[in-house]
């Protein structure tokens, strides 16, 4: 059992950890970057293990998340630079890539990146028809026609494109 001081031994010393993707690639990451993920931080506080295996995050997604963590752990970069990094990070990425990113960041609990990616995904879905979303993202419609009609009825106002005025 490792005893730790209040802040944990990890933030104090400059150490590295190895993170392994599901397809076996290993990434050497500074602990200061790794602990920006709440999940990784918890593991590192609980275990001496320097090798963390992420059994369901592929190497491409993991590489992107680590690039993000390393940038945000870099004290030499201003907040403005980090913000513009975030914007460029998600721009031009395929929806599929974003999907794995949102899953990975949700699992790893990297809140800021998760929100940024979710926003980007939302922008893609904005003003799209339900049928388009199903087709484009290969989603099975598991409603009966009656159930779908009922759900439309419950929030009928949302389907009314007229701007509601008070007059």
């Amino acid at each position, binding site marked *: 059992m490792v005893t730790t001081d209040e802040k944990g031994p990890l933030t104090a010393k400059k150490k590295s950890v190895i993170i392994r993707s599901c397809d076996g690639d290993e990434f050497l990451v500074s602990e200061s970057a790794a602990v920006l993920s709440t*999940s990784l931080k918890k593991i590192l506080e609980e275990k001496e293990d320097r090798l963390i295996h*992420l059994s*369901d995050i592929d190497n491409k997604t993991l590489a992107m998340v680590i690039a993000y963590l390393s940038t945000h752990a870099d004290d030499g970069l201003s907040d403005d630079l980090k913000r513009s990094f975030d914007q460029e990070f998600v721009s031009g990425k395929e929806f599929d890539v974003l*999907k794995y990113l949102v899953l990975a960041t*949700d699992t790893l609990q990297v809140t800021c990146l998760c929100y940024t990616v979710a926003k980007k995904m939302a922008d893609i879905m904005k003003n799209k028809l339900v049928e388009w979303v199903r087709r484009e993202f290969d989603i099975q419609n598991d409603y009966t026609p009656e159930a779908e009609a009922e759900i439309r009825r419950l929030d009928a106002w949302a389907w009314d494109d007229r701007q509601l005025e008070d007059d």
Partner: protein
Amino acid sequence: MGAGFSGLVNNNSVIEYPSKPGLGDLPESCIALVLSRLDPSEICKLACVNNTFREASLSDVVWESKLPENHHILVKKLFGVACLKALSKKEIFDRLSHPIRFAADTKEVWLDKSRGGVSVAISWKGLKITGIDDRRYWTHISSHESRFQTIAYLQQIWWLEIEGKLEFEFPVGTYSVFFRLHLGRASKGLGGRRIICDAEKIHGWDIKPVKFQLESSNGHHAISQCFLDGQGKWLHHHVGDFVVENSSIPTTLKFSMAQIDCTHTKGGLCLDSVFIFPSRQSRN
């Protein structure tokens, strides 16, 4: 986010999540995160995609950000403290976005579903109006053109003075105050067509301007003057704006409309209500 995460970590520091997803298999929590970045109408529409989207679209994570920051106070005031715990954020959104009457049904408040922001309307019945019960001056008319189904019609008067007061916990923002007025009296003609009757009774509004005033408890004052014109249609006459910076305390507003030059009479005016809208909304 990351709910149940600790249960997914085994002894070899392995993080797993369920099978590789198509978008339909994304966990509800992730879909909720995406939906939370959309507008209310978009969220409700995408609930139709499938059951997981529907469940995600009902989560508190999604609706928290669509509610005014002081919705706890508003819910307590308008629905009672028990509702605060009993209702989901989506249910609170739905209830707030239907107009809610208060102050003996003379006032109404609602959350704008599409644009967000809280608006208040105050019927003429909630205002202090000189001579309102004297039928020589004012008559009270049922009207479907008012959200309160009643308007006050001014036949003629020398001393026109209308005052109102409101104490309300407005969310942070800038608001504009309007009097909703109509020169001439509208009524239904043959075939339900809208006609203006008693047009000849419209008088006195071009001699002297009407004075509008607004005062808020946090120091905003506005005075404006305006000759009323534009007969035959409802107009929102802008009184002034105020800014709310602290939504945890009530803002008290006093507003008035007056034309008290007793050298002439004025008349032929319908008064419906006073509106307070978030001022980023364009009106008229």
